[in-house]
């Protein structure tokens, strides 16, 4: 028989305001197994915890029920308290009489009655609790960062600086990501390349970092501390160890008509290419879709001009297998396609461009060498219209746009408008906006400057239609403040396209069993308190894969993710969660129901011999749970038709005892 102590917390007036805490303590005194029951103003305070510890000693308690807030809040606190008093921490149960009771009820009698019932259920459960001991597993001291944009770069550098080896997997031939394509960065207007490329060089030179560029994650197995990852290194048809990045092959390549993705197709590159001058690794890559040699065996010019003998047309994709203790997702974003937004005539006119294309048009390394010229005829645009929120905050048109705010567009549009007016004061610049959202250090000041100092014309309202005609773009929009329709004959229109997670994120999430929201952004373990951890242990989130962010925010999150990884990797052993499932193999019939519902891949099957009558043995297929992978969600225990699956700490008998106590 247990000797149970009940501790009812007031939580100031949070609970005591709608629950008669003294009545609860009094009522629970008479429950089976309860030998002590009391209430206190703040049970989680030092004094409250001391009260529990003293009661454990004084009354020789074997189990504890704390009637307080949600277990997500303070279960860990009271487990530690129990532990300090010499009890097994898993002999503590929380009855949530705050979030699920006092906060949702208004009347004292009803709240009190419910609190008593919840307390009774917890007491019934503790009566069946047994001490649990968590297992341990080793930690592989190497981290994997998926994605080599600014988020991945910062995370990798921080982990490497702490002394742990890191691998970056980047699907493109170079690291750098979207930031490498930007011209200037708000709010200080320093050039993106000037602040990014030194970091890229740091990555290349850091002996703790390996870069797998032009590579993709193919498969992930294992669990926190012990991930096994398969990485596909795509054939680039150039030996990375020999290529010096001299560029002679590129100059001579006769295939000149390949759309240059780095400049978003606004100019061309060769079939053998280095994406941009500061690429890391600075190694050439052959594009198999365009290379004449790879397509029909006729060419081979690059081989002739490569002094290092690095060209290898026979190169094959390579599989790398590596073990990691932690995985950081930094897969970033893409602007959404403008296909469904043809009211802005993106498909009809070359002079309707996206903001990312505008970045390339104003960049010195871009298709126009930094001169702002119309893509259609190379003329200087005299009237430019910027349209914000194209596809963002689009709840009425969810099938084509996004419901969320993309967060970065107000600031980069202000930047584009300001820079245009600064460089070409003769240009008339108009910005259409729904709202201007510029929270952030020095952000609002920046946008005000665009309006007040640079004379950018901000119009509250949206553009309804753009009609290309002759060499003009007839822009029709509404001015909500003046309450009138506006028509502008523009030379160039820039659309601030919404951003969405990179397409590779969804399959990756499946491999990692990491959860995503409806927009395919990775979900964090807690939106406020655990923002850089995925709910899947050992998987961390960095940058825009978790939600729209600007560069300062991305870099801080990247650092935060790194510190979480470092905290994990510096441990030699990981203490597991003892509340894991296990299968009673005598009852298991090998039906696979549990395996199908397990979201973590923790369940596998093995053939086992069981003794039969007359000294025979019979081989049966039975479920086995890997306790290190199991997260204790309990889905398998519900799915199991034979009742073989059970969850330690939440055994079927315990749950039923709780239900009985509630229904009594």
């Amino acid at each position, binding site marked *: 028989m247990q000797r149970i102590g009940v501790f009812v917390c007031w939580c100031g007036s949070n609970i005591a305001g709608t629950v008669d805490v003294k009545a609860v303590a009094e009522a629970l005194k008479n429950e089976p197994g309860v030998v002590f029951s009391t209430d206190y103003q703040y049970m989680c305070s030092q004094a409250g915890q001391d009260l529990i510890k003293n009661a454990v000693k004084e009354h020789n308690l074997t189990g504890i029920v704390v009637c307080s807030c949600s277990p997500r809040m303070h279960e860990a606190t009271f487990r530690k308290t129990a532990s300090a008093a010499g009890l097994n921490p898993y002999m503590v149960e929380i009855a949530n009489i705050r979030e699920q009771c006092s906060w949702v009820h208004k009347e004292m009698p009803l709240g009190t009655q419910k609190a008593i019932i919840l307390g009774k259920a917890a007491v019934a459960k503790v009566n069946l609790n047994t001490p649990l001991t968590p297992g341990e597993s080793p930690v592989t001291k190497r981290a994997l960062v998926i994605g080599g944009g600014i988020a991945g770069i910062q995370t990798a550098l921080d982990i490497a600086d702490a002394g742990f080896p890191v691998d970056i997997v980047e699907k493109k031939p170079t690291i750098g990501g979207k930031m490498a394509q930007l011209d200037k960065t708000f709010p200080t207007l320093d050039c993106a390349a000037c602040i990014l490329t030194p970091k890229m060089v740091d990555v290349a030179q850091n002996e703790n970092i390996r870069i797998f560029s032009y590579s993709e994650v193919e498969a992930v197995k294992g669990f926190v501390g012990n991930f096994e990852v398969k990485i596909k290194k795509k054939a680039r048809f150039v030996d990375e160890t020999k290529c010096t990045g001299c560029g002679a092959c590129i100059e001579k390549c006769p295939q000149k008509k390949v759309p240059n993705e780095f400049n978003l197709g606004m100019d061309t590159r060769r079939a053998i290419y280095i994406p941009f001058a500061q690429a890391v690794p600075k190694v050439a890559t052959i594009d198999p879709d365009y290379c004449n040699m790879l397509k029909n065996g006729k060419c081979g010019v690059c081989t002739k001009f490569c002094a290092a003998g690095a060209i290898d047309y026979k190169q094959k994709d390579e599989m790398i297998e590596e073990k990691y203790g932690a995985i950081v997702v930094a897969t970033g974003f893409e602007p959404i396609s403008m296909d*469904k937004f*043809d009211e802005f*005539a993106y498909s*009809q006119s070359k002079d309707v461009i996206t903001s990312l294309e505008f970045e390339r048009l104003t960049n010195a390394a871009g298709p126009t060498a930094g001169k702002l010229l119309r893509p259609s005829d190379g003329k200087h645009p005299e009237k430019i219209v910027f349209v914000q929120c194209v596809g963002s905050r689009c709840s009425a048109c969810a099938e084509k746009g996004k419901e969320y705010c993309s967060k970065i567009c107000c600031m980069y549009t202000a930047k584009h408008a300001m820079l245009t007016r600064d460089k070409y004061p003769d240009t008339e610049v108009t910005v259409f906006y729904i709202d201007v959202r510029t929270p952030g250090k020095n952000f609002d000041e920046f946008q005000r400057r665009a309006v007040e100092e640079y004379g950018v014309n901000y119009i509250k309202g949206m553009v309804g*239609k*753009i*009609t290309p*005609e*002759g060499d003009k773009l007839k822009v029709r929009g509404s001015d909500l403040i003046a309450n009138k329709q506006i028509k502008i004959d523009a030379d160039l229109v820039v659309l601030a396209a919404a951003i969405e997670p990179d397409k590779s994120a969804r399959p990756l999430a499946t491999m990692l069993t990491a959860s995503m929201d409806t927009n395919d952004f990775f979900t964090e373990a807690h939106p406020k308190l655990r923002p850089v951890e995925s709910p899947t242990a050992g998987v961390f989130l960095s940058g825009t894969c978790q939600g729209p962010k600007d560069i300062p925010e991305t870099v801080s999150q990247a650092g935060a993710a790194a510190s979480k990884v470092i905290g994990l990797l510096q441990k030699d052993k990981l203490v597991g969660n003892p509340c894991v499932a296990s299968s009673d193999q005598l009852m298991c019939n090998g039906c696979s129901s549990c395996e199908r519902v397990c979201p973590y891949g923790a369940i596998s099957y093995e053939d086992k011999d069981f003794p039969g009558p007359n000294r025979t043995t019979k081989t049966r297929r039975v479920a086995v749970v890997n306790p290190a992978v199991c997260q204790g969600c309990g889905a398998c225990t519900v799915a199991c038709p034979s009742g073989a699956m059970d969850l330690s700490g939440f055994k079927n008998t315990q749950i039923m005892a709780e239900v009985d106590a509630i229904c009594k």
Partner: protein
Amino acid sequence: MKVSYFPGCTLKNKAKDLDRYTYRTAEVLGVALEEIEEWQCCGGVFSTAKDEIASKLSSVRALKAAYKKGQPLVTVCSGCHNVIKQTNYVMQNDRDFADKVNRYMAEEDAYNGETDVYNYLELLRDVIGFDKIKEKVVNPLTGKKIGAYYGCLLLRPSTVMKMDDPENPRIIEDLISALGAEPVVYANRNECCGGYIALEDPKSAEKRSLDIIRNAKANGAEMIITACPLCKYNLIKNGADIPVVYFTELLAEAFGVKEENDGE
């Protein structure tokens, strides 16, 4: 193949061309149009008032007649198509409304939006196929630069009409290509012609129509084709200086079933 056919009032008066060429081209394609018996006006405009039943009853009757014959219902006029398709959508998705309508009609079997409604354009694309159309062309319209004019009723509301992308449609352009002509894409092809405002504020309608004609011509169109009698009326009335014809007439021309002395 037999289908139920709802011509609509205008097709028996001002828009006889639309009707006549629909029949002729359907015949070429082996489609028998069975005109619904005693059909009534579609209602003219789909009323968005939730409790407005009376104006939708004639559409429901037409839909139900097709349902009883187990045939899809084919329309050709954009206006009728819009009203009938929207009415069918409400009958499918608004239980209360459908119950009210069914009780009001007081017939034995209830109707709950079972009929498939096709605009003739959709029939050509989705049931017959533009590649089949191409095979039937005897007078390819090679070299003709033709601007498709959609107007608003054919495409919107897109969640109900489900014909094409309302901002970047291509169904008529694809038909033009199938007939051997060259489609001209211009931004105003899905703008409103002015519609019924031509009665109350002719100046506004004129402005809208001229905007469309100018934009089509600026992009090289030598002819405009449409599915809507009201659009055609507004464009011509407001001074279109290039031909504006129904898409069925163009189809008839390409199929070689248009006669010289045709015309209203």
